[in-house]
């Protein structure tokens, strides 16, 4: 069973964005939101969820419609679908996760301009069947998510000594003179952390290529 | 072409070395065996016309250049081809000839007046095997006989230290130089004679035959390439031809006597106090007859652009200076803390800069290989206003187009940028390699 899953096309489509085709650290897409929402783990996770949902649905919907969308207005159609999904996601967050949506502020709305969504719609959904497109959307959402969650965790731990709002840095460490790292709260810290991750990942990828 | 009487290329590079050969000029007899070594004919692809144990006479063709089929190199002496020496990839390196002075030299037509047309001069030079002695900018290759030179630069002073000084032999060669200039005049109206402003030679005899320029330059900067760079007013002169005074002497004598002139003037330096002097020698002579091997590095050509000689002791074609450079390793604790009063240094980092001691040249690298730290010294010393550090970046990035735009082809390969680099980067070698590659691509 596992072997069959592993050799399926959907599996390949799903896993590629998690590592060697990662949208953030390899393709360098979706950087703006990665800088803005990774101060805390919680906002990062919520953003990832919103993003993954929007991406999966938009990929699915656009892929199902791919044969009837007139070519000359396809970008507009993509935008309409994505924008509607984003607004719905934003409204839901405001209704059910008010605290987080306040911190995410405009960035949920800005999912619409996230390069990953338009990129996947153009590059994948319009050329593949809905089944694969949904897996591609999920994979890219999670690939984006891995980076965001790691960056969010590092920044929250460094900048506030907490994870998911819960203090994890022992009080004794603070008593010994430790201070939270203010730099982590600034957007440049996300640049640096993402840069380091991209560096690490590319080194590993190139080592893998050399090895194989 | 600009017409100044004197140009100044002062780039604050005035390092001094011990070992200047004495101006005394000694004459050496023909050695029992001589060798025609190709070490200084970089662009030539030789095709032999003689075989081992053939008998050859002075002035007889030995091989020609496959890319330039009319360009032959002739035997400097009569004798028997003793041995052909091949290097890696079956490349001909040297033709050894056992001298037999009983055989008469090949007799050419005596030309007591210069030929009347450029074509006549060219064919006379080609026929007498004298073409391989001059070079063309910017790749320092042997020019193609069918081309017309935009200008010819005649070098009266070699920029490198320890090369033959014209002043040491002037009485013997003055007339030949005048005759040589007459011959060159038939090839091209623009002849530029470049002399060292610091050497006292009377140039008046030649000033109505050619544009005479005295170059007041720092160490190693008075080269034909640098002179052309400072004199040119349009890009047509980029492909000027050049030669040194020894070439003029050679063609003048060969034309006048009808016998292939096989004498050159060379210097030995760094060998011993008694041996370091000027010599009149036969081309291709065996140096072991005057200077048996010692524990120093023997260098053909100058200290900045010479070739470390390996096994062969035969004077290569076109080489006029032989230096021996000290290779002994001196051990001192934390050398970088020294005041360095005795260290030759272009920079002010050592006291030697201010005291200006004469030091024996040494092969010590003086440091370890590092990345460029952008100190800018190379830019300070470049005689043709290049920005070597930018150029190096483009060369490393394989951006040859930009490198050319930044003046790569103006590089005279003087080696001074390499000399001053504290990170010990061989800039000059990289530029030379890029130029060579470029030349091969263009002429492929």
């Amino acid at each position, binding site marked *: 069973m596992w072997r069959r899953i592993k050799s399926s096309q959907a599996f390949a489509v799903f896993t590629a964005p998690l590592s060697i085709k990662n949208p953030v650290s390899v393709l360098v897409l979706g950087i703006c939101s990665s800088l803005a929402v990774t101060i805390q783990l919680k906002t990062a996770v919520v953003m990832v969820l919103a993003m993954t949902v929007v991406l999966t649905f938009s990929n699915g919907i656009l892929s199902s419609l791919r044969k009837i969308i007139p070519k000359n207005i396809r970008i507009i159609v993509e935008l309409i679908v994505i924008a509607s999904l984003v607004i719905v996601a934003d409204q839901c967050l405001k209704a059910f996760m008010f605290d987080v949506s306040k911190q995410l502020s405009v960035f949920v709305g800005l999912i619409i301009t996230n390069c990953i969504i338009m990129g996947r719609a153009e590059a994948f959904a319009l050329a593949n069947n809905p089944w694969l497109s949904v897996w591609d959307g999920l994979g890219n959402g999670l690939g984006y998510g891995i980076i965001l969650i790691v960056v969010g965790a590092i920044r929250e731990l460094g900048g506030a000594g907490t994870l998911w709002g819960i203090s994890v840095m022992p009080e004794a460490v603070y008593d010994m*003179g430790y*201070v939270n*790292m*203010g*730099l982590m709260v*600034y957007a440049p810290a996300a640049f640096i952390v993402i840069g*380091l991750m991209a*560096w690490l990942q590319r080194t590993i990828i190139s080592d893998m290529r050399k090895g194989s | 072409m600009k017409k100044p009487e004197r140009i100044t290329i002062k780039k604050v590079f005035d390092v001094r*070395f011990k070992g200047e050969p004495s101006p005394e000029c000694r004459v050496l007899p023909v050695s029992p065996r001589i060798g025609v070594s190709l070490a200084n004919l970089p662009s030539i692809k030789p095709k032999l016309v003689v075989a081992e144990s053939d008998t050859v006479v002075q002035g007889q063709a030995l091989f020609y250049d496959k890319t330039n089929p009319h360009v032959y190199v002739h035997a400097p002496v009569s004798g028997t081809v003793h041995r052909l020496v091949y290097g890696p990839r079956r490349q001909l390196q040297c033709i050894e000839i056992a001298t037999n002075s009983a055989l008469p030299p090949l007799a050419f037509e005596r030309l007591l007046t210069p030929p009347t047309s450029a074509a006549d001069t060219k064919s006379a030079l080609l026929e007498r095997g004298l073409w391989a002695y001059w070079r063309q900018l910017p790749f320092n290759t042997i020019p193609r006989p069918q081309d017309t030179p935009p200008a010819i630069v005649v070098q009266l002073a070699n920029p490198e230290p320890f090369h033959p000084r014209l002043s040491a032999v002037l009485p013997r060669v003055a007339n030949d130089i005048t005759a040589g200039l007459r011959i060159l005049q038939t090839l091209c109206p623009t002849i530029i004679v470049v002399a060292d402003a610091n050497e006292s030679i009377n140039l008046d005899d030649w000033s109505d035959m050619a544009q005479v320029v005295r170059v007041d330059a720092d160490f190693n900067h008075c080269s034909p390439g640098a002179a052309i760079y400072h004199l040119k007013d349009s*890009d047509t002169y980029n492909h000027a031809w050049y030669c040194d005074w020894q070439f003029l002497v050679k063609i003048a004598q060969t034309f006048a006597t009808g016998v292939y002139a096989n004498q050159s003037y060379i210097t030995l330096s760094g060998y011993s106090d008694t041996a370091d002097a000027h010599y009149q020698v036969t081309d291709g002579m065996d140096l072991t007859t005057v200077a048996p091997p010692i524990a120093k*590095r023997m*260098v053909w050509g100058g*200290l*900045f*652009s*010479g070739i470390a000689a390996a096994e062969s002791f035969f004077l290569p074609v076109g080489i006029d200076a032989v230096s021996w450079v000290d290779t002994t*390793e001196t051990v*001192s*604790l*934390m050398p*970088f*803390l020294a005041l360095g009063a005795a*260290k*030759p*240094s272009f*920079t*002010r*980092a050592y006291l*030697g800069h201010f005291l200006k001691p004469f030091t024996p*040249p040494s*092969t*010590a*690298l*003086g*440091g*370890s*290989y*590092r*990345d*460029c*730290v*952008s*100190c*800018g010294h190379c830019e300070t010393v470049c005689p043709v*206003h290049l*920005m070597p*550090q*930018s150029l190096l970046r483009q060369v490393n990035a394989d951006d040859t187009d930009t490198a050319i735009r*930044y*003046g790569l*082809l103006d590089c005279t390969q003087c*080696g001074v940028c390499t*000399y*001053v*680099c*504290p*990170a010990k980067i061989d800039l*000059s070698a990289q530029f*030379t390699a890029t130029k060579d590659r470029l030349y091969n691509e*263009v002429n492929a």
Partner: protein
Amino acid sequence: MKFLYRRLQALAPLFEKGGRFERLYPLYEAVVTIHFGSSDTTRGRVQVRDALDTKRFMILVIIALIPVTLFGIYNVGYQFYAAIGEPASFGSMVMKGLTVFMPILLTSYAVGGFWEVLFAVVRKHEINEGFLVTGLLFPLTLPPTIPLWQVALGISFGIVIGKEVFGGTGKNFLNPALTARAFVYFSYPAYLSGEVWTAVSSSASRLVGYTSATPLGVAAATAQPQAVTDALSEAGYTVMHCMIGLIPGSIGETSVLLCLVGAAILIVTGVASWRTMVGSVLGVVVTATVLNGLVSDTTIPFLGMSPLWHLVVGSFAFGAVFMATDPVSSPDLKPSKWVYGFGIGVLTVLIRVVNPAYPEGVMLAILLMNVFAPLMDYSVAEYRVRKRIPNGL
């Protein structure tokens, strides 16, 4: 000495290709060349080489830093005893200074050296001596109150992000020591832009009711327009004080006089560019003069600080002499060095005066101009290339 040299040479096969400790070759190379220099000989056509190498280059910077370092150590002790209000002998001041400074310096060298060696081993290149300078410059820019773990983090950031990410010394475009300081500055602002600059625990200083603000702190906090100089003299600062440097501040930055001594050493030996230094002084003078002309009752009082004061307070002298002239991160070409230096001067004053948050602007000014250095070089190079007679194929 010869004996030691022979012993080291005998060990070489262990570290060369195929040897047991092949991976540690950079370490071996560093040990040998630090003690005896390189024994390499020239290859290629240039048979002789200049005696100058990067080791000498970097050592000269360190020598130029010795005066400010020694004075910094003394000043740390001096400020300590001044703050607790006890008279003390010269010896005890130096002792106190050493106990504060040496741990910072050793941390910086140990941690910085660790990263340098690690990258050299992984990337199989030689250890660059540039870190010897970075490791000393960084502590000198820190206040004596800095906790050691922040020093360690800072130098790690400076070496790894400021330098090794880009491929090591020579390829970095930011000054690593300043990158390290910028990291500490933005991460732990309370330690670097706070008001406590003297190595005294706060309880001890409260005992005698004495806190000391840096001259820049005093100037930035002036409430009255056109009264900066009055405020400074009220706080006990004169230009002479700032020149000599027995004032609170970062360890190495306080003495303008000794920075000038360092500048003299660097300029005489040709290691640093006088163009950059003069350019930055000009930048400060011009900008401060212009701003002085704009002063009115409604402007920020800090605008009124005179050019002379701008030159002597804060870390301007230290930055312009030792940081801005770092050859790797500053521009290569001489005209761009002028522009670069001038830009540093202008930005220093603007950041000090116009920006309400940071009373000191030298660090940010230099880092910002570092970023623009390649652009300046590019412009100058293009200008020059256009004037050349083309030499194409």
